[in-house]
């Protein structure tokens, strides 16, 4: 298997990927891709024969966000279906959190344990820092509503026919 550079729009995100990533971590990942692009050559996106990502969905998204036009990939087209499923799990370390719903529904627990995923451990930091029965936030309902940015899109209107469209 050799690394090749492929246009970003040819690579497909894997819809079965059981991992999610939060905004802050994603920003860090984008930053990491920008600052250390050689990392991608050392650890390229792994795709199947159809250019579907087997390993590196988050990195692919980060590459696109970072504006990369061509992305290094490794075609793992010799893996069996079973090996591909195993690879998706085994490869996922580092960034991202497990999305437990697909993980618990679509993946066999016995295999997950075999592949080294500790399905029982609680991810850290999912609760508020305030602890049980914690403090109440000091902002008001109006403050909350006021923090919503106006996301309406400016309207354009044709002066002749009156047709309206979004800018």
């Amino acid at each position: 298997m050799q690394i090749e550079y492929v246009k970003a729009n040819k690579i497909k995100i894997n819809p079965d990927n059981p991992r999610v990533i939060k905004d802050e971590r994603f920003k860090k990942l984008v930053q990491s891709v920008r600052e250390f692009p050689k990392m991608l050559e050392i650890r390229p996106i792994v795709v199947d024969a159809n250019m579907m990502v087997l390993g590196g969905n988050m990195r692919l998204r980060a590459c696109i966000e970072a504006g990369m036009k061509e992305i290094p990939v490794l075609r793992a087209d010799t893996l069996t279906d079973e090996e591909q499923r195993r690879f998706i799990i085994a490869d996922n370390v580092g960034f991202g959190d497990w999305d437990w719903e697909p993980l618990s529904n679509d993946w066999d627990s016995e295999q997950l344990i075999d592949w080294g995923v500790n399905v029982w451990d609680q991810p850290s930091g999912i609760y508020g820092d305030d602890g049980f029965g914690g403090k109440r936030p000091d902002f008001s309902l109006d403050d909350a509503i006021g923090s919503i940015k106006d996301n309406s899109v400016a309207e354009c209107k044709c002066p002749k026919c009156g047709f309206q469209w979004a800018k």
Partner: protein
Amino acid sequence: MGKIGVLILDKQVRFRQISKGTAFDDIKHIGFRAIIDECIEAGHEVGYVSPETAHTVDKVVFSLVSYYEAYNLISNKTRFKKGIENKLILGGAGMSNAIPFRDMAYAVCFGRGENTIADIIAGKPIENVWYNNDKDFTGKYEIGQLKRWIDTKGIQHGEGPKGLSGFQESHLGCRKKCYFCQYTWKNKFVKDDALIGYKSGLNDCENTIAEIDWGREGGKQNNHNITAIDGATERARRTVNRANITNLKIIETLHRFFEQTAHEVATLKLYCVVGYPWETQKDVDFKELLDLFEIVDKSLSDSEPRKLHVFITCTHFVPMPFTPMQGEPVNAFNVREYLHKHKPQYVGRNIVAKIMSQISSPAAAMEQAVFNRSKIGDDKYMLSITSPLYNKLGSNEKIGFIKKHFPERLWGRTDDIIHDYIKAPYDLENVIKAYRQNVETFYGNNKTNLDTV
């Protein structure tokens, strides 16, 4: 015939026609696929639209998969142009309340829209559909549309991409009538003959606990079974009308695995509801349930080679409209946190049983209740839940915010439930009495977790 837009709450989407067989083929969207097909067959042109381009089509359809979609829609409200109130058709499993959308929706479909969407577009009166010009709407709901669609299209259970089951409609024709579950109370049952040849369930293995087939000789070998027990103690299950799931039945089911199956290892996934309003510590420490595993495990011979892994996945109770528990409060006791601290589990020689770490939080249950119960004038509460300030909070802080700023009828105990735009098909009043009798019988004056928060 007109243009129908499928609403995508993403970037600006230009109208892009959907040709038959090129969209919504994912099995997760089978119901919506049926609706798109019906639109196309009725002669409409169907494509994607965003809020900014929704005005360019004649009607817009949007499926609320869960209550999250309701909040997504509210937070995107300002992106729509005037006139959307004559176009937007809402429906889907997450649709529980039309009021928050009264000024932006043309029609709201409660329950399934299959086999009715063309009529909704045409504005015909339909029993489970609310139109924004209806004042005295009372509807009744009959399910079976999807079943008819499946029959027509010839899709068989077990078909689907990558060998997934063809469809996941475990609630179609559900006769369990759990008191907390919306599906069985909002929807009418189909007749027996409509269910002939129809098998529901997740990967063909969602059964009641007593029906679990671990794989007899010559039968299908299931080494991964899923079922719902809906309560960690027998009295909790009895209170919500799951009296059929006794501790003895659970023990028998576990024994059957070791008596019948040829598998060396099998998994059993149990869905369980926690956070009931009358719940006590005993109901969430899982000791009663874990003791059952220990009893079975210790009864096995030393040479027993088979192993059973049990996953227990919990969801926090939400009072859903049209159910006997609709007026109950959200229990803000954070069961998720409690379980995280105590990590109840049983690790034996042949049986390992653990609670899955991800459980929905009471804050999410409160948000869902707020959507379910919002009335005219309550828009600001839903809007504040979509705000960046609110969304930066931890789950306990969210609970604090809602308790402090929101009226109790939106999250607490209430008799003031909106369902005047859909007629419940059952005599809910008497069922609610039966439910409350259960609470009195099984819990009496016990101190509940609700009392502690």
